[in-house]
């Protein structure tokens, strides 16, 4: 099932939570809405589910106007950050809820409902918890039950609001992989909201990066990481070194010193140079367009992470780089640095 969002505007007082958002989600996609808190991603998800209403715009699910229907008629599975399991019902009854509240005409008989719930509990591998109450489950178990409950109504689309946000790091990692394999199995069009870039890049087919109520970039995980469209995306996804530079004509200057890199068509004026930590080439002093003193080195696994105080200009700039361990760096050493890949964005944001 496809989802189409057109020109959605949502204001809370003077604050624009969503500012003209357009989005298309294809059949069977697993899409991540990624952004810092306050970027409007949860509001967008709630509007698609029918739990919030936009001030303007259109929402189409499978081509059909969704805003004409309330949340209960949209047939959308919603998984909440804090699970929202019914605390007075057993796990079994929680999962069965969506089937039991169906209109009498299409409601299944008790045996069918039981079989369906059993099937779903098997799917989330928690059939042995059927008679427990939510308060007796761990966080990870609760979230999987919440997912089973949402799937019980055979939703047209599945929406997950920070599904792993309330879990600890280890459980979160496991559930991530589990969610992706589950999606491969059932292929329901899904959108999940997260502020965790790693989660978005690892789980989703496509990532939508949002900031301040606008979509900054839509692309595959590799795309948003390797070709960030804006300074915000570059800074938000992956670890970046950011240096204030001045672009004049085709040359780039840092603190008055020209850097030996092309401006790549960046407009003249105050700009920011973005370089990934691992895209900084190191060499002996005097090579490369930057120079700095190694202050501190930590080595782990295949890389060494070095803190380097750049010399020249104001000389107070300290950057962190990741370098392979083929040439061990020493504290106090002066080295040359050359950005291998970089992006230059205008400085205003």
């Amino acid at each position: 099932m496809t989802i189409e969002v057109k020109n959605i505007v949502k204001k809370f007082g003077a604050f624009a939570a969503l500012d003209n958002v357009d989005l298309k989600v294809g059949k069977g996609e697993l899409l991540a809405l990624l952004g810092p808190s306050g970027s409007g991603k949860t509001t967008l998800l709630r509007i698609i589910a029918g739990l919030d209403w936009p001030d303007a715009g259109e929402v189409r699910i499978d081509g059909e106007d969704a805003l004409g229907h309330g949340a209960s008629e949209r047939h959308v599975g919603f998984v909440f950050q804090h699970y929202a399991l019914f605390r007075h019902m057993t796990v079994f009854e929680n999962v069965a809820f969506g089937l039991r509240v169906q209109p009498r005409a299409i409601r299944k008989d008790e045996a069918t409902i039981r079989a369906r719930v059993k099937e779903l509990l098997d799917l989330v591998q928690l059939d042995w918890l059927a008679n427990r109450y939510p308060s007796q489950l761990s966080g990870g178990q609760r979230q999987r039950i919440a997912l089973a409950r949402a799937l019980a109504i055979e939703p047209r689309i599945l929406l997950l609001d920070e599904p792993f946000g309330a879990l600890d790091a280890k459980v979160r990692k496991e559930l991530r992989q589990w969610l992706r394999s589950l999606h491969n199995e059932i292929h329901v069009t899904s959108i999940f909201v997260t502020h965790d870039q790693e989660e978005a890049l690892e789980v989703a087919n496509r990532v939508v990066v949002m900031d301040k109520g606008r979509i900054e970039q839509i692309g595959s995980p590799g795309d948003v990481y390797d070709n960030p469209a804006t300074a915000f995306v570059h800074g938000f996804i992956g670890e970046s070194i950011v240096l204030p530079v001045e672009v004049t004509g085709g040359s780039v200057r840092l603190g008055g010193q020209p850097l030996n890199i092309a401006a790549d068509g960046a407009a003249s004026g105050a700009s920011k140079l973005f370089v990934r930590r691992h895209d900084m080439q190191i060499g002996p002093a005097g090579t490369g367009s930057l120079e700095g003193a190694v202050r501190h080195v930590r080595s782990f696994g295949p890389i060494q992470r070095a803190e380097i105080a750049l010399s020249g200009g104001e000389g107070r700039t300290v950057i962190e780089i990741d370098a392979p361990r083929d040439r061990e760096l020493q504290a106090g050493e002066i080295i040359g640095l050359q950005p291998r890949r970089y992006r230059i964005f205008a400085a205003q944001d």
Partner: protein
Amino acid sequence: MSTETSFVTRAASLRAYASTADLAISPPAIHEVSDRARRIAASRNLLNEPRPIRFIIVALAISFLTIFVVLPLVVVFASAFSKGISAYLAALTEPEALSAIRLTLLVAAISVTLNLVFGVVAAWAIAKFEFRGKTFLITLIDLPFSVSPVISGLVFVLLFGAQGYWGTWLQAHDIHILFAVPGIVLATIFVTFPFVARSLIPLMQEQGTQEEEAAISLGASGLQTFFRVTLPNIKWGLLYGVLLCNARAMGEFGAVSVVSGHIRGETNTMPLLVEILYNEYQFVASFAIASLLAMLALITLIVKTVLERRLDEGQTPRDISRDDPSDH
């Protein structure tokens, strides 16, 4: 108090673990916990008064309660039975007494039912929606608590009395509100309105709207959501409010006294009859009725204690998610 104790035991077990594991550097979490435990322990020590002082404090509290609560209760029952059990029963089966009991039950039944509905609706509106004038509504709900019951009764006299705003119109249409059952019901509703709403608002606010949103996204209608999700979640709080509302409805004197007109065998509720009989020196009869009200109070207290325990359990569900390391 219970959370504090469990915290202390947890902190203690954590510290015990730390010492057996012989951790050279105590992790910050354990450090914080033991710090807080120490503070709690210190505050306990402050309360560790010498025995005589503790004894005096407890004795003071008990004797105060004895003089002001237990003794009056004993006096009520002693006076009621002073002429023997047959006189007691005779007093209760007087037509006037029976009529008062019937009226009290009727008034309580109507006003508690209506306040149950009003209370749930008001609490629902306040806890689950954001709207202009919400604080004003909360203040309004509390109004009956802050106004003297006599004033509450007087309001209805001003509205429905012969010289009141709607008095002439009512008289012309032969509708009796004042000095009749409707007036008593109205006054009782007014006085007991806050109980249900007040006991539900904090509970519903704490529970939030997520479970309702989940129910709706699963296809439940508004009514299904209310009866299958909201109501089960608030049932103990609701019962608690209803119980207090009922106790007050049956025991209300001031407001009812103003609007009742004291027509014997017709508009006298139990509390009013107690006063009338007492003024007529019919002590046994007066205290016999009073003993019924006292028993109602005792039953209310017992049920209230039970309900409070249930409510506590409901609000702090046994949360094992953090203690369970074998998540998957």
